[in-house]
C-alpha cells in the first residue's frame, strides 16, 4: 500500500512541530525518517497513527484520503506501529497480547486463544521469529518482545509499518536481526517507515532517506551518503563525529582490579574472575554485547553489588567491602547505565539532583541544614558550564530530554574531586549534539590524569573513546586490546572468540 502525507502541519501553541511535511512511502521500500530528538519525527507518526489530528494536510493510502479518529481507525486501514516503548501487557502471554484489542471469541464469549496462537505461529514461521505463543511477555528478552509487537502489527494485516526508534533498546545483535526482519517485510511488499537518529542503521537498511529538522523536511539523502553528510544535514551544522583526543599521558596512579567475581541473587556468576588495570590518564572501554556482565562490573566498582569477591584497588586502597558512600568519598565518579532509575530523582529539581550525592557535609550541608543559596549558585554554574538546556534550575529533571538529563548526571559527578571516573553507557538515548559534548568531557576528564572506565555496547563509541578496549563475554574478559584493533576482531571477541595475540596490550 502506498502511503502519502500531504502538507501535514501540526502546531503546539506557537510551536510548529510539523511544518507542511510531504512524504511518500512506496510499497516495498524502507523509508528512513532521520532527525534529532525533538525534530518532529514522532509527532508526524502520531498524526499518521491517529493519535493527533493534523491542523492542516491530509493522509492518503493508495490515493484515498483518510480521516483517522484514533489508532483503531489507523490500524483498520492497515497501518501498524512498533513503538519505542512497547505497548504490551507484561503478564499476558504472546498470544493474548496479539489478540488484545482484536479479540476473537467463540460462542458464549470465550476467548478463542487457539486462533491467536495459530496466527502467532503462522507469522512466526513465515519470518523465522521463533516466538512461543504461550510464553509470558515479561519473561522474554527485549528483542523478542519487539518481535511480538511486529507480530501484533502483522496479525492485523498491516501494509504500512512504522518503526519508531526501534533500536534504542536493542543490542547490536538484536539490531542486526531487526534489520533483517525489516528487509524481509519490505521484500514481501510492505511499506516501511523507519524512524531513527542513528546514522549507521540508516545507511545499512534504508532505500530512501528523508531528513527532518525543526519540524521541516530539510532534504533527502541517498543511502550512499557519508555519516558526516547525514549528520550535518540532521543537526544543521558540521558535527564532529570522531572524538578528538591526543595520546594518553599515563601516570602512576591506577585502578587495579584483580580476580573480581560478582554473584547474582540467584547464585549465578555474573562477573567471572575479571582482572584489569587502568592507569591515570587513560580510557579503558569495556565493550561487549549488553548483558555480559559489564553492568554488574561497574556496580561492583561502586559497591552496589552484594556478593563480591576479589579486589578493587584505587591508588592502592581497597574498595571491596566499603559502602557506596565511602567509595564515593574515595573519589569515584559514577554515571549509571540507566539514568532514570539509578542516576536521577525525576521529581526533584535540577539543583536538588546536582547535590544528590553530596549531602554529607559542606559546602551544601552545614550542621544538618541544606545550604540552599550555595546549592543554587552551584546549580546555575553547572547548568551553564554543561550547557543544560532548561528553563531554570528549579525545573524537575524528569521533564528534561535524555541528553540534558545525562548532562545533569555528568555535571554532578565531574564536579567532585575525582580519582576514578566510571561511566556506563554514557550516551545511550542521547542526541547527537549532546553525544559530542559528553565525549569531549570524558576525554577532558582523562586528561586531568585519572583513570577512566567507560562501558559501551556501541562499537563506534568504544573505538572512538578508548585508549584500550576490554571485551567481555558471559562475565569473562575475552581480551584487552588496543583501540586500533580491527573491527572484525572486536566483533569476534564480542561473540566470545579470543584473538590469537591475546594479552599483548594488557
Amino acid at each position, binding site marked *: 500500500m502506498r502511503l502519502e502525507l500531504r502538507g501535514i502541519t501540526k502546531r*503546539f*501553541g*506557537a*510551536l*510548529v512541530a510539523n511544518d507542511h511535511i510531504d512524504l511518500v512511502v512506496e510499497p516495498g521500500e524502507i523509508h528512513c525518517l532521520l532527525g534529532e*530528538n*525533538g525534530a518532529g519525527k*514522532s*509527532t508526524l507518526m*502520531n498524526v499518521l497513527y491517529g*493519535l*493527533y*489530528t493534523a491542523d492542516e494536510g491530509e493522509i492518503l493510502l493508495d490515493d484515498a484520503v483518510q480521516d483517522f479518529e*484514533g489508532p483503531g481507525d489507523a490500524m483498520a486501514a492497515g497501518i501498524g506501529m512498533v513503538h*519505542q516503548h512497547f505497548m504490551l501487557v507484561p503478564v499476558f502471554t504472546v498470544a493474548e497480547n496479539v489478540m488484545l484489542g482484536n479479540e476473537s471469541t467463540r460462542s458464549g464469549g470465550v476467548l478463542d486463544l487457539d486462533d491467536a496462537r495459530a496466527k502467532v505461529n503462522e507469522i512466526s514461521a513465515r519470518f523465522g521469529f521463533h516466538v512461543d505463543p504461550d510464553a509470558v511477555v515479561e519473561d522474554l528478552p527485549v528483542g523478542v518482545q519487539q518481535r511480538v509487537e511486529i507480530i501484533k502489527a502483522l496479525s492485523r494485516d498491516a501494509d504500512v509499518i512504522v518503526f519508531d*526508534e526501534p533500536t534504542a533498546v536493542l543490542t547490536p545483535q538484536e539490531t542486526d536481526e531487526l534489520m533483517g526482519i525489516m528487509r524481509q517485510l519490505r521484500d514481501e511488499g510492505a511499506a516501511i517507515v523507519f524512524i531513527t537518529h542513528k546514522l549507521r542503521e540508516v545507511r545499512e537498511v534504508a532505500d530512501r532517506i528523508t531528513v527532518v529538522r*525543526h*519540524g521541516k523536511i530539510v532534504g533527502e539523502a541517498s543511502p550512499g551518503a557519508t555519516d558526516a553528510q547525514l549528520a550535518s544535514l540532521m543537526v544543521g551544522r558540521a558535527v564532529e563525529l570522531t572524538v578528538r583526543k591526543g595520546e594518553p599521558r599515563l601516570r602512576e596512579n591506577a585502578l587495579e582490579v584483580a580476580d573480581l567475581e560478582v554473584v547474582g541473587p540467584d547464585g549465578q556468576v555474573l562477573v567471572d574472575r575479571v582482572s584489569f588495570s587502568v592507569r591515570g590518564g587513560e580510557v579503558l572501554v569495556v565493550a561487549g554485547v549488553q548483558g555480559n556482565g559489564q553492568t554488574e562490573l561497574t556496580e561492583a566498582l561502586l559497591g*552496589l553489588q552484594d556478593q563480591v569477591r576479589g579486589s578493587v584497588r584505587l591508588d592502592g586502597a581497597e574498595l571491596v567491602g566499603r*559502602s*557506596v*558512600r565511602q567509595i*564515593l*568519598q574515595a573519589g569515584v565518579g559514577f554515571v*549509571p547505565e540507566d539514568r*532514570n*532509575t*539509578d*542516576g*536521577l*530523582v*525525576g*521529581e*526533584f529539581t535540577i539543583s536538588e539532583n546536582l547535590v*544528590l*550525592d553530596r*549531602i*554529607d557535609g559542606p559546602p551544601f*550541608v552545614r550542621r*544538618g*541544614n541544606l545550604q*540552599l543559596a550555595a546549592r543554587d549558585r552551584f546549580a*546555575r554554574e553547572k*547548568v551553564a558550564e554543561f*550547557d*543544560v*538546556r*532548561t*528553563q*531554570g*534550575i*528549579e*525545573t*524537575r529533571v*524528569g*521533564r*528534561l*530530554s*535524555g541528553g540534558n538529563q545525562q548532562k545533569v548526571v555528568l555535571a554532578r559527578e565531574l564536579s567532585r574531586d575525582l580519582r576514578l571516573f566510571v561511566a556506563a553507557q554514557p550516551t545511550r*538515548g542521547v542526541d547527537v549534539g549532546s553525544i559530542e559534548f559528553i565525549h569531549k568531557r570524558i576525554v577532558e576528564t582523562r586528561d586531568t590524569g585519572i583513570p577512566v572506565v567507560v562501558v559501551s555496547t556501541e562499537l563506534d563509541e568504544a573505538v572512538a573513546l578508548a585508549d584500550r578496549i576490554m571485551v567481555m563475554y558471559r562475565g569473562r574478559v575475552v581480551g584487552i586490546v588496543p583501540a586500533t584493533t580491527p573491527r572484525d576482531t572486536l566483533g569476534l571477541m564480542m561473540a566470545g572468540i579470543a584473538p590469537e595475540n591475546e594479552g599483548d596490550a594488557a
Partner: protein
Amino acid sequence: MSGETPGARPDGPPDNTLDEALESVDPQAEPGLAEELQQEVAREQVAVVPDTGARWRDALRRATSGGWVVALGAIVLAVVAGSILIVVTDEDVQAAAPYFFARPGDTLAAVGQAVGGAYSALFQGAVYNFGADSFAAGIRPLTQTLTNATPLIAAGLGVALAFRAGLFNIGGQGQMLMAATAAGWIGFGVTGLPFPWHMLLCLVAGVAAGALWAGIAGLLKARTGAHEVIVTIMLNYVAFYLLSYFLATPGLMQAPGSANPKTPPMQDSAVLPPLLGDQYNLHWGFVLSLVAVVYVWWLLNRSSTGFTFRAVGENPKAARVAGIDVSRTTVLVMLVAGGLVGLAGAQQVLGTVTTGFSADIDAGIGFDAITVALLGGSSPWGVLGAGILFGGFKAGGSAMQAAEGIPIEIVLVVQSLIVLFIAAPPLVRAIFRLPQPDGRRRPRRAKPTTVTEGQV
C-alpha cells in the same frame, strides 16, 4: 545559551509556565529553544514516572500530588453531596416532596431550611456560636475545634512524613495506643515528680513509645523487606490487645477498686495545662502540634536528613547509587513518623482525656490521620489546615446533630467523600475543568495525548 530564564520563580517547579513559555518563543528565531520546550511539554504530557517498580508509590504520588485546588474542589464536591444526603434524609422535605408539583415552594423551602440549617449548625458548632451571651462563650466552638485538631495534626504529620519517604504508615492506631500506654502509665503511676518535669517525662515516654512501635515496622522492612502496610496494620491489633490486657489486669493499668478496663486519672503534675484558661478544653498540646508542624517543615525542606527521606521516597534506587543508606533511612523515617503519632497519643491522655482512659483512647485518630495527610497533600502546612478542618467537622458534627437532628453519620459521610474525591484528583479536575497534569485524560481532539518525541 545557559537556558536560564531570568523570571524563573525561585521556589517550586514552574508548573504552568511551560505553555506560556512556548507561546512566547518564536520557533523561527530560536529553533533550538523551541525544540527543547516542545520536548519538555511532551515530557510533561507523557508524565514520566520513573519505573521504580512500585505501583504503590505511583498511586501514592497521584493521590498526594493533587495540590490545594484539588483539595478545595474535593471539599466542595463533598459538601454538595452531603447537602443532597441531608435533603434526602430530612423529614420536612420528605413530607413536602409528595405534593412537589402542586406546591413546589414547600419542598424548596424545606430543602433550603434543611441545608441552610445544617451548615449553619456546622459553622456555629465548629467556629463561632452566635447564640452565645458573650464572646468568651461564643468562641468556645473554635477552641473545641482546635482541641480536636491537636492530635489529628500531630498524627497527620507522622503519616505525611512517611508518605513523603514512600512509606505507608497505616499503624497510627497502634502507635497512638502504645504512646498512650507509656505516657499514661507514667502519668498516673509515677508519683513525687513536680509539674513540668512529670509532664515532660510523660511526653518523652509517649513519643518514644510511638517511635519504637513504628520503628519495628521500619526495621522489619529494612532487614527483611516485609511490607510496612501489613506490618503496621498487624501491629495495630497487637497494640490494642496488649493495652486491653494491661487495662483488664489489676496491678498493671487498671484503676484500683474498679472492674472496668480503665486507668486511674492522670496526676495533676502530668497534665498538659490549659492554653486559654480553665473554661476551655484547649490545652498546650496544640502548641506542641504547631511546633511539630514547623519541625516537619524544616525537616523536609531544609534539612539534609529530610532530603534523603524525599530522595528515598521518590527513587530509592537513585538514592542508593548516590550513597544514601536506604535501609537506615527507612528505619529513621518510621522512628520519626512514629514519634509524631506518639505525640498525638500522649496529647490524648495528658490533655484531652485526663480522667483515665480505656483501649479506645485513640478515637480513630490513627486512621483519620491518613485522611488528614492525604487532604493536606503530605505537606506540613497542608496537614495543619486539614487537621483543623477535620477538628471542625468533629466539633460541628455534634452541633448539627443536636440542633438540626441530622444524624452524625451524615457528617462522617461528608468526611469520607472528601477523602474519596481527594484520592481521585482526575475526577475533581474533570468536574471543575481544571487542567490535567499529565494531559492523558484531556479530550483527544483538544490536546494531544502522548508525544513520544525523542527518547526517554
